């Protein structure tokens, strides 16, 4: 496949996956292997105090030596919380600076708060973080996030965890056409065809979690998503035929067709 580059680094897969909502760490690891993803998101949370000290750790299952871990700020509702979370993440991951910024505005819809997102992005970029930013599908906000120095723009296709698919391909198209940095659909993908549609629109990648983790068979869905993203990318690069409404065109020669039998 053609190069997929984020912040100057090349990655072998355009599918990015989350690590939440799996039954156990074994399912997490197997699904991620099946997805072929090289960049995987993680969350940062308070550790349990005084409870099971031998509890397995996500970083032992998915070691930073094998994957690019993308700490995210899911669950943060203000720039301050998001910045604090990512400073801790950088310390936890030994100075790793590629992060996913997500500042939410509403617990029911998990819609992003773009004002707080921009505020957080400005500060994080000043602190030398490389910010992949979750945002709404507003093309003006997307452009602003690019201009302040984010390394990738990640608009929603529909609400986080909703699986409703690509609801506004037109807005995504405007964002893609305007952007000079990678655009990834983040949130809303429900099944393989959604991922393909996003890639056919010209997205550089797709980030998903629930579509795989909540499938009846997460491992098989992870494999389907890998193919869907590759298929969509290849179709985009190949360039689809023009749509010709109301003008059918036969695929077989029109010469040499047997005449009707004369009775």
């Amino acid at each position, binding site marked *: 496949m053609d190069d997929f580059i984020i912040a100057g680094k090349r990655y072998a897969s355009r599918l990015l996956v*989350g*690590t*939440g*909502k*799996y039954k156990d760490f074994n399912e*997490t690891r197997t699904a991620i292997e099946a997805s072929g993803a090289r960049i995987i*998101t*993680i*969350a*940062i*949370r*308070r*550790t349990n*105090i*005084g409870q099971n*000290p031998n509890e397995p*750790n*996500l*970083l*032992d299952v998915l070691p930073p030596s094998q994957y690019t*871990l993308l*700490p*995210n700020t*899911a669950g943060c509702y203000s720039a301050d919380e998001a910045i*604090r979370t990512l*400073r*801790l*993440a950088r*310390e*936890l*991951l030994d100075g790793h600076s590629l992060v996913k910024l997500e500042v939410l505005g509403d617990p029911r819809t998990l819609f992003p708060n773009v004002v707080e997102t921009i505020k957080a992005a400005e500060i994080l970029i000043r602190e030398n973080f490389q910010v992949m930013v979750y945002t709404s599908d507003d093309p003006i906000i997307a452009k602003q996030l690019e201009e302040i120095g984010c390394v990738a723009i990640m608009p929603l296709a529909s609400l*986080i*965890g909703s699986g409703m698919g690509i609801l506004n391909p037109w807005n995504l198209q405007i964002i893609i056409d305007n952007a000079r940095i990678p655009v990834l659909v983040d*949130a809303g993908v429900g099944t393989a065809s959604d991922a393909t549609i996003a890639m056919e629109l010209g997205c550089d990648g797709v*980030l*998903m*979690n*629930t579509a795989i983790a909540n499938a009846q068979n997460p491992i098989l869905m992870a494999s389907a998503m890998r193919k869907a993203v590759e298929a969509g990318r290849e179709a985009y690069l190949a360039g689809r035929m023009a749509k010709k409404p109301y003008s059918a065109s036969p695929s077989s020669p029109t010469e040499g067709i047997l005449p009707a039998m004369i009775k």
Partner: protein
Amino acid sequence: MLQLTINGQPQHFDKPLNVQQLLECMSLQNKRIAVERNGEIVPRSQFAVQALSDGDRLEIVVAVGGG
């Protein structure tokens, strides 16, 4: 007597501690964690150097599964 707030919970210790000693008390030494003290990151290299003060607020975090 040392009173700390760790991950939002009040905790009492009856001897002075630095960050490293606190983590040992909590069986968190050598775990993949990060520590914030009164809103500032404590780099791992500082664990054995930074003495804790009465009233300190600490956050100790780990990586967990998430989107």
